[in-house]
């Protein structure tokens, strides 16, 4: 075996240019793979994190717009019924027995946090201008457990909300539009026409325009007062799970049990996640194409080497090398090319990723982002090297097998 390795090494060293070109093919393929996969998964993780901050694992609410069976369908079951343009019933978005439901869900061992809340459309008055937005009545401490609000605070602390009965924590984009800052008072108007003056005790930034530009947090009791509701009024229950991947299977159970719509995060953010899938497909298809091209390069170079070394192979066989030994000589060469090429590729990919991570990128109003998010997960480096070595092994196998099948007599007889 050592002799076979010696011969393979000598072949590689004696033709350095050829060896380096073959290696560069792999290096380029793997380098691009690492750079692309780092950027794409970085973007994916970033958007996934955003969706996590903007939506709970499971969201229970009363979907008043959900279509319901008409009266005639309830009476005449199975008959041919036609009801055109049925309007929803006059229902409030209130969840009945919300606190009992929350208490029951809290006992579920798969759940780590439950936060009842109230959401409502409101107008923020800015002089004569009214900005539409929404207000969320929450137990801010519970909400923090679900969405890590503490980290998103730009001004003030979440505890300030607890202490201030008429306080709100406002989204940064909204605060900017209102030209308001911590300590200022803003007037809000509910759709029912009730007006109230609230004091800004903090400013948060989620990084997602669709939230930062419209949302404020207030205490549950504050929002109940604005909406002129009793102290049991709750419209939403947000749930955090131990394993967020279980959301899709747990949600329907809750929906059946409590009779309210239970939406998992994957359904709520389907568009975001489709983007992730498309990015993944793109990354892998480009990388595989690059590696196949590199593989053909290795195939070609090995074929050429074997063609040039027909005589050597013939004499080796005459001297007692079995077909297996000859195959090993050439397989070792392609694997060494693949391995070293892949290692260099990882280094180059890492370098490119570092460069990309420093490139400025303006996310605009929608996403607060100043640099490309790049993922340095070692998992992809392992995939890269496995990928590279496997491709070269495949590319090297056919020429090597051909070499092992060379009939020495044809060559030695001249």
């Amino acid at each position, binding site marked *: 075996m*050592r002799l076979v390795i010696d011969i393979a090494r000598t072949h590689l*060293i004696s033709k350095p240019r050829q060896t380096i070109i073959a290696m560069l093919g792999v290096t380029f393929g793997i380098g691009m793979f690492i750079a692309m996969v780092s950027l794409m998964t970085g973007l994916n993780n970033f958007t996934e994190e955003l969706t996590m901050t903007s939506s709970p694992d499971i969201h229970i609410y009363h979907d008043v717009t959900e279509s319901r069976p008409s009266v005639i369908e309830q009476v005449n079951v199975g008959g041919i019924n036609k009801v055109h343009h049925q309007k929803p019933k006059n229902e409030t978005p209130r969840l009945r027995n919300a606190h009992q439901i929350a208490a029951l869900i809290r006992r579920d061992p798969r759940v780590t946090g439950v936060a009842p809340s109230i959401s409502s459309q409101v107008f923020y008055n800015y002089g004569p201008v009214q900005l539409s937005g929404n207000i969320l009545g929450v137990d801010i401490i519970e909400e923090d457990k679900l969405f890590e609000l503490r980290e998103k605070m730009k001004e003030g602390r979440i505890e300030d909300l607890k202490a201030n009965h008429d306080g709100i924590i406002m989204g940064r984009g909204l605060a900017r539009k209102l030209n308001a800052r911590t300590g200022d008072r803003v007037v809000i108007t509910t759709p029912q026409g009730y007006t109230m003056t609230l004091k800004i005790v903090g400013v948060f930034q989620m990084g997602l325009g669709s939230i930062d530009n419209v949302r404020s947090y207030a205490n549950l009791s504050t929002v109940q007062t604005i909406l002129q509701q009793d102290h049991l009024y709750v419209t939403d229950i947000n749930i955090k799970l131990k394993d967020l991947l279980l959301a899709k299977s747990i949600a329907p159970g809750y929906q059946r049990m409590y009779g309210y719509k239970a939406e998992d995060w994957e359904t709520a953010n389907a568009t975001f996640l489709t983007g992730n899938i498309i990015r993944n497909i793109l990354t892998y298809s480009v990388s595989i194409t690059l590696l196949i091209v590199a593989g053909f390069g290795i195939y070609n170079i090995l074929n050429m080497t074997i063609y040039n070394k027909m*005589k050597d192979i013939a*004499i080796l*066989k005459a*001297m007692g090398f079995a077909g297996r030994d000859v195959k090993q000589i050439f397989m070792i060469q392609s694997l060494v090319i693949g391995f070293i090429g892949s290692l260099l590729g990882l280094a180059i990919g890492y370098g490119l990723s570092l460069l990309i991570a420093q490139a400025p990128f303006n996310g605009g109003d929608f996403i607060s982002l100043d640099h490309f998010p790049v993922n340095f997960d070692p998992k992809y480096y392992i995939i890269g090297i496995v990928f590279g070595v496997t491709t070269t092994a495949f590319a090297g196998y056919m020429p090597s097998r051909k070499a092992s099948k060379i009939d020495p*007599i044809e060559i*030695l*007889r001249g």
Partner: protein
Amino acid sequence: MNTTAFEPHVLHTHKITKYFYEPDKFQVLKEIDLTVHKGEFLSLVGKSGCGKSTLMYVLSTMDTDYEGELEIAGVRLTDKTQNELAAFRNKHIGFVFQFHYLLPEFTTLQNVMIPALKLGKYSRKEVEDRAYAKLEMLGMKEHALKPTSKLSGGQQQRVAIARALINDPDIIMGDEPTGNLDSYNTHVVFDIFQELTHTYKQTIIAVTHDEEFARKSDRIVEMSDGHIVR
């Protein structure tokens, strides 16, 4: 067949027959019976196309597409697998061809060492010592560390002989071993072969066109139309 009934022989064939199928079916070897004794220097001669090279490659074990029986060093080789035959060649047969077929990337010494390293019977150091000894015997010791491309044709052929000898084979087979050499180097190679057979009891079978070479060898086997005629 009881082989001990004959005087000690290295190679023995029984009714070896071989056909070529391209372009037409053609019987190239016709029931060849040949026995070669230890220490014999045998020349295989005959006109082009008489089958002498074909016979040599059957004897070399590289060509397995024949009928009949082949036995070398007391081992029946007919019906053995390619891998078994490769291992057998490594241990028992040395080759010298018309062209030297040295590996160009390796030094003279490394070329001689390769078959011994493949055999794996001796340590690397012992193999190196043995290779030096063989090179010295052939007057090539001072060229041991040169790349083979820097040697002259005669020198290259001597290195090839050293390589054929490294595993102390039972038999050396040569296909036109002097066919590519000038008359001086032909003499040198012939003298080496003669010394090997007479001094070291080495068995040699050489296919040759060179009449003088054949005449000076111990035994001439002449072939014609697939038969041994002399």
